[in-house]
């Protein structure tokens, strides 16, 4: 019997598989087709202080082995998430969930995290300082080391839950940002968010996406994600949740060998809604194939 369990800052997961924020809503659409309690956990839709409609449509573009999205953090706001979404979520998911938090100022991040700190079902807070689709915030915190540290320090003061900072790959040196988050007291690092990308429609000769640019995700970005997880693993001593183009159980092993303790699956959920279930069911087979008895033994094994 193989052991799939992993532990993220004291939060024990049955397996490392976590659907990534923004690709899994608040879980119920997927609960219609499989029992989502088989997941390690899941990271719910990025939540901000105030409700947001997000960007104009079209928000989606096809790419080779991937897609671009420019949703722009559409969400009902933290109060509606706590009062309406979390009670519904509790009915279909009985494990701890990861609260993904977005913001436009340090005060907004603090406000949202402080409220989510009181929610029993939230096992871990993932602070998104890397959304490429919003202006005047989001990614700007994730591309400047001292801002990243300030957000981390401020959020750590208002919550006792583990705080993971979700980093942007759109930087010159991701290890510098990761180290700043660790110095600010982060319990862990999530990476990578999407790569800034763009497509142009040959018929209209204009960008496909209304907001012109968006976040590129999907299988195509997997090697970039593995490289960055590998680099961050060498730079910090806190745990890593790895993500970016993961779509098979082999990808999960590769991500863990690079240094990830938890592994998020993002865009693949949109194409194959059962992908996380398929991966969890397939993991014992690939572990056996590669002579792995205990999955957590391979974390960082490539170093």
């Amino acid at each position, binding site marked *: 019997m193989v052991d799939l369990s992993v532990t993220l800052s004291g939060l024990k997961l049955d397996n490392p598989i976590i659907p990534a924020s923004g690709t899994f809503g608040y879980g119920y659409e997927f609960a219609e087709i499989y029992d989502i309690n088989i997941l390690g956990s899941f990271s719910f839709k990025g939540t901000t202080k105030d409700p947001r409609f997000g960007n104009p*449509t079209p928000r989606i573009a096809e790419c080779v082995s991937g897609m671009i999205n420019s949703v722009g953090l559409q969400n009902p706001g933290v109060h509606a998430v706590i009062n309406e979404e979390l009670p519904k979520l509790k009915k279909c998911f009985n494990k701890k969930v990861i609260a993904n938090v977005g913001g436009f100022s340090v005060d907004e991040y603090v406000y949202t995290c402080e409220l989510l700190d009181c929610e029993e079902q939230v096992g871990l807070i993932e602070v998104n300082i890397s959304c490429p689709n919003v202006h005047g915030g989001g990614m700007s915190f994730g591309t400047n080391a001292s801002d990243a540290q300030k957000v981390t320090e401020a959020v750590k003061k208002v919550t006792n839950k583990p705080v993971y900072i979700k980093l942007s790959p759109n930087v010159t040196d991701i290890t510098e940002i990761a180290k700043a988050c660790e110095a600010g007291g982060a319990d862990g690092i999530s990476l990578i968010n999407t790569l800034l990308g763009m497509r142009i429609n040959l018929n209209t000769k204009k960008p496909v996406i209304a907001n012109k640019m968006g976040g590129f995700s999907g299988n195509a970005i997997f090697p970039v994600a593995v490289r960055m997880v590998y680099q961050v693993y060498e730079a910090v001593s806190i745990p890593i949740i790895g993500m970016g183009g993961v779509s098979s159980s082999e990808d999960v092993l590769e991500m863990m060998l690079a240094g990830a303790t938890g592994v998020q699956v993002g865009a693949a959920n949109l194409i194959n809604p059962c992908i996380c279930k398929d991966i969890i069911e397939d993991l014992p087979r690939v572990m056996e194939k590669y002579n792995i008895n205990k999955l957590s033994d391979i974390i960082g094994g490539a170093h």
Partner: protein
Amino acid sequence: MKQSIFSIISNEKIAKDVFKMILSGDTSDITASGQFVNIKIEGLYLRRPISVCDYDSKTLTLIYKVVGNGTEQMSKMKCGNLDILTGLGNGYNLDCGNNVLVIGGGVGVPPMFNLAKKLKAMNKKVVAILGFNSSDDVFYEKDFSEICDSVYITTVDGSYGKKGFVTDALKDLSYDYFYTCGPEPMLKAIYDATSTSGQFSFEERMGCGFGACMGCSCKTKYGNKRICKDGPVLVKEEIIW
């Protein structure tokens, strides 16, 4: 929603760039006219959403226009299997009106077909208005004639049927409710040209097609809606143009 494998029974050209594909598989999750399916196509990343033209307990009929790589690839398939998500979207609410219009424009015509069949089965008077650009684009006139009380065809260039737009045909008709699907400028023109309530089916670029990604959101008078999950059908009273 259900993910299952369908096999292609036939796939034939029925008008300029327009194909009709009949598939066999598990249609049990299709619960309403106006729903759509989302099709995985080999080599392409995103699924392709296509409205359901007709279905029964074992077969699914799709009519689609070749507009890009996905539909072009579909048009070349003669046999084989497709991975399809079924039962997507809200579909039309049939419990409105007794003397109704079904108005389709271009590839907005197909979802009107199963709808018209169901409305007729409820003993309503059903009149179809089908709009196309030109005579080469016209399809399903006979199929609609077999089920509807009357069928009006319009073409923009006047090469077949009445010259003009669907709104030119509807202005002389009496009705107490309408259902429509087609390009957005047509929907807007129908919104302005009709005095009764009605239901509109919208199109948008989608990521997932089942409500997870927020790729196809729109604002309505009743709050933010996802075209794929809370739509594609919106009622006239909630639409903001």
